[in-house]
């Protein structure tokens, strides 16, 4: 088992190592130690891109939460055999090719696309709206791509809550909504946080959606990292950014564990 884990740790260890070396003039690695790559990451240019990414991904996460929670709740209200079907319905798009799902939004959102044609046809707008190649399109694409990752953990959390807890609250005088707010919501917090991390992390790291739906005009951390490896051939700096992403992930999960512990008073 040690070997298995070593195989998993190695990739991260290697990029961690790379992050301390220098870039060669034509790419590759010059093996002299430096901290410059870390200093560069603090440059306002990259901090700005990080800010954009975090803002966009947070929007995606928030929207996914607002849509995903009621969805998961609705599924738990179905009969058990229907719950299974509803879950499959939610996951199924997730099992079709990611690129194709993203591409479908181009067809929907472009100025000649269905949405604009529909709105024009209904006379709601007189000129096509610029829907595609905007940060909004990127948010939409990411939301579409990762919504199931929000629904599933919340569903899992909700379905694990003993239904008698909710009934106990109602029995003690709480209205349906109060019982939801005071008992179901708090107990679903751990699962909800997992869902938020599951949506936020791949959103920040995604480079395909900004490229296809953002028209290259929106740059996120994922694009930046990809470009360091594939365009600028600056592996050390790309490694720094990748490491930063992993660190962010670890911090988010630590935060999630902490909040969970606080809510339930246990690990």
């Amino acid at each position, binding site marked *: 088992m040690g070997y298995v884990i070593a195989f998993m740790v190695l990739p991260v260890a290697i990029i961690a190592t790379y992050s301390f070396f220098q870039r060669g003039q034509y790419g590759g690695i010059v093996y002299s130690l430096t901290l410059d790559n870390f200093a560069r990451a603090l440059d306002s240019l990259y901090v700005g891109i990080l800010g954009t990414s975090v803002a966009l991904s947070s929007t995606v996460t928030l929207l996914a939460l607002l849509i995903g929670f009621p969805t998961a709740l609705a599924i738990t209200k179905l009969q058990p055999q229907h719950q299974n079907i509803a879950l499959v319905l939610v996951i199924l798009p997730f099992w079709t090719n990611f690129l194709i799902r993203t591409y479908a939004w181009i067809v929907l959102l472009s100025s000649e696309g269905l949405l604009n044609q529909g709105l024009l046809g209904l006379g709601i707008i007189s000129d096509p709206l610029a829907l595609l190649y905007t940060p909004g399109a990127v948010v939409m694409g990411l939301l579409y791509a990762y919504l199931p990752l929000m629904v599933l953990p919340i569903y899992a959390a909700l379905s694990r809550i*003993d239904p*008698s*807890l909710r*009934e*106990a*609250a*109602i*029995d*003690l*005088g*709480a*209205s349906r909504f*109060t019982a939801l707010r*005071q*008992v179901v919501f*708090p*107990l679903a917090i751990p699962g909800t946080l997992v869902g938020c991390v599951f949506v936020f992390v791949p959103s920040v790291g995604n480079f395909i959606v900004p490229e296809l739906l953002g028209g290259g005009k929106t740059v996120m951390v994922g694009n930046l990292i990809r470009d360091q490896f594939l365009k600028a051939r600056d592996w050390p700096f790309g490694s720094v950014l990748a490491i930063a992403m992993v660190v962010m992930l670890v911090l988010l999960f630590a935060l999630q564990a902490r909040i969970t512990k606080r*809510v*339930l*008073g*246990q690990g």
Partner: protein
Amino acid sequence: MTVLLDIHNVSKAFDQLAALDNVSLQIHTNEFFAILGPSGSGKTTLLRALAGFESLDSGQIVLDGQDVADVPPNERPVNLMFQSYALFPHMTVFDNVAYGLRREKRPQGEIAERVTSLLATVGLGDMATRRTHQLSGGQKQRVALARAIVKRPKILLLDEPLSALDRKVREDMQLELKRLQHEVGITFVVVTHDQEEAMSMADRIAVMDQGRVEQVATPVELYKNPGNPFVANFIGTSTLLRGHLSSGRLHLTNGVKVPCSLPSEDGAEIWLMLRPEDISQTPAGAITGTVISTNFYGPNCLVVAECGLEIPVKYLVGNSEVPRVGDATKISWAGDTGVVVRAS
């Protein structure tokens, strides 16, 4: 004795399967009432209907003169203690107990006072700030109980209140529940499948089977005078012999005749219920058989013997006369012992 709760012709079906079949019951003020039945008998459905979590297909539930069929559970003056206790894991003991009072928007001071004194009553005065997962089973049960009675409901419903507890704790809690019921003066309705539990705590018991109430009576009455073979079989240990009476003897269907001089119509088909203590093992016994098992209880021993009476016979012997399995035995009973039970 005033009727607090009148359950009148209540029916409820799930997928055409009758969970409650025309159930009628009256429960009195300050009574400790038990609903006893095997699993699937409809007792839990009835309890949930009383709490308001199940709607009725037909019938009325009248509480203190008011039909509560359309009153939602959060507005009924009835509280439920859940089988799983359903303690909120994200709240402290204090907050769990205070939950219902807070929903009533009671003043802070009153809440603190009532919760604190009730926690003291149930013996958890120093546990108020604990989280529920830090409590033992018995402590959880006390919190659940406190939470359900702190609102002073007209009726407290208890769903299998002791089933999650160890035997020793369970015995303590049986006494505790009785004590508390007297102390707080609330009508308790307990649902249980455990006849010992029901018999030891309840003032009256309703025995349910397949969605119907088979008999409502005091524990002594149920034991001594079961209304039908199901109750006779379900309550206590008994030997039930089926046959028809004729000239002071019971003719079993396999032709064997056994003594029975109890008053009944000649020729009618009946069950004769014999409690183990009704039968004695004696060398003068007219019925012979073979011992097939013995269960030793300390002061006495339950013997099961095959005597050619269609079913094995169960009887008690003193701890000095315990036979061995395989021994031949002779038994007898007086013609006027036992109870005649008719099929309902």
